[in-house]
């Protein structure tokens, strides 16, 4: 392997384990994605394909725009005054920033789990049922809640106390409750912004295992500061850095095993071996 300074930023061979005749289904693709907060350009020129039913990890130093990028996938940046998005974010080929796109529908299709568990001050049951109620769910709510809690590997721990407050749970359980809440509305994509950084190591491993189980149903995109977590838990890894104007950009994207054993870019190599700064 030759580490090259100016190799293409996106490793097209990253997807090569899937036969060429059947390109891997891409759940989210960005083209020329940039985000501005007022005059400040936070990220620039992001071309990224997140493969369906795989786990994509976004890594990079603080301030490189990882969280900004995933927040474009559910149009959360729309909620920030002065934020502006350029380029395209496509689901199934449709630009979610195009005319006529309803951000609320986008957010139903794209669930999100945050750094700190943030259950509502409601019962465990109502936390999970809330999204479905808001979306006018007409089916059997009990079944929906049980199904989501089972998928989140929480059912056995809470089935006898569904009416108790979500706050009564441990931090790791609260985060799994938030995952249950996110998947209860049957999204296609689940975004996770440092979902284990507030958890202890055992709860962290539990969440990582859960993510592995969930990927057969959902496309998962996770921002993490923990490189070992990216190496353990993801299928693809995207490494971001920021330029001299502090605008984040994608340095390298590829299969996780390649990124962590033989990255193509010197900058990636320096970052993951700690020769950076």
């Amino acid at each position, binding site marked *: *392997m*030759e580490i090259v300074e100016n190799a293409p930023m996106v490793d097209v061979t990253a997807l090569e384990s899937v036969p060429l005749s059947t390109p891997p289904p891409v759940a989210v693709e960005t083209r020329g994605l940039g985000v501005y907060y007022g005059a400040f350009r936070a990220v620039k020129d992001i071309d990224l394909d997140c493969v369906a039913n795989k786990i994509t990890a976004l890594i990079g130093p603080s301030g490189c725009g990882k969280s900004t990028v995933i927040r474009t996938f559910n149009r959360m940046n729309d909620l920030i005054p002065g934020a502006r998005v350029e380029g395209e974010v496509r689901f199934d080929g449709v630009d979610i920033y195009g005319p006529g796109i309803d951000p609320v529908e986008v957010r139903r299709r794209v669930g999100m789990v945050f750094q700190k568990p943030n259950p509502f001050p409601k019962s465990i049951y109502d936390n999970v049922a809330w999204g479905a109620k808001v979306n006018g769910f007409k089916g059997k709510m009990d079944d929906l809640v049980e199904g989501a809690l089972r998928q989140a590997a929480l059912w056995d721990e809470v089935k006898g106390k569904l009416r108790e407050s979500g706050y009564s749970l441990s931090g790791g359980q609260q985060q799994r409750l938030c995952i249950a809440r996110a998947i209860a509305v049957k999204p296609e994509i689940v975004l996770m912004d440092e979902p284990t950084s507030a958890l202890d190591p055992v709860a962290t491993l539990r969440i990582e295992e859960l993510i592995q189980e969930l990927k057969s149903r959902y496309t998962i995109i996770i921002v993490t500061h923990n*490189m*070992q977590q990216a*190496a353990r838990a993801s299928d693809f890894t995207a490494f971001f850095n920021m330029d001299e104007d502090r605008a984040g950009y994608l340095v390298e994207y590829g299969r996780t095993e390649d990124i*962590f*054993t*033989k*990255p193509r870019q010197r900058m*990636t*190599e*320096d970052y*993951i*071996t*700690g*020769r*950076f*700064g």
Partner: protein
Amino acid sequence: MSDMRAGFHQEMADLEQTLLGVADQAEQMVGMAVDAVCIPDMELAARVVQLDARIDRTYLEVHDRWMTLMARQQPMASDLRMMSVILHLNTTLERMGDQCVNIAKIAQVTFGLPRSERIVAQIREMGDLVRPMIRTGVEALVRRDLDEARLLPAMDEPIDRLNRNMYKEVVDCGPDPGMLEWATRMMIVSRAIERIGDQVVDIAEQTAFLLTGEMMEFNEEGMAASDRTGDDS
């Protein structure tokens, strides 16, 4: 650029340095073991066995340090590849020491038997060929020099050829039963030297892995080959 993991990188460099010392020692042992057979010299043979005990101790010490570093540091990318190379090199050098012991012990059990000077000359030539190989293989690793690593298979080729030829030389000793016993043992010596040559090629392949990220088998032109055919191993 600052090194956020300077302590780890220093410990890894120290491990490599320890192994380079072992490689030096292994190269000297090869020379001593071949001399023990060719002179012949029982004391030299005993010295080789003693030196191998030192290599074995270092092997265990390096293995412990390696395990600790892996558990504590969880290296990645070129660091991970270097740690893989260190583990492989440690095993390879330990086995090289074992081959020297095999040769030395044959020097001891064949002492006083009638000898064929043709075979002695051939064993000596093989020893003379394999020692520079060890130096070159280690140099290529130290300098992180892929081109130099690729030289090793070509250097190994005459050793393989001499080893294949040894069978014929031994058969030629047939009429003299005493010499035949000695010569038969020399086939094992020849084989041990040939294995050492292969082990140096393995080190070169590890160097290539370190530098390229690709695990490859070298053929005689030093290029990657999926299958090293014609190998007399």
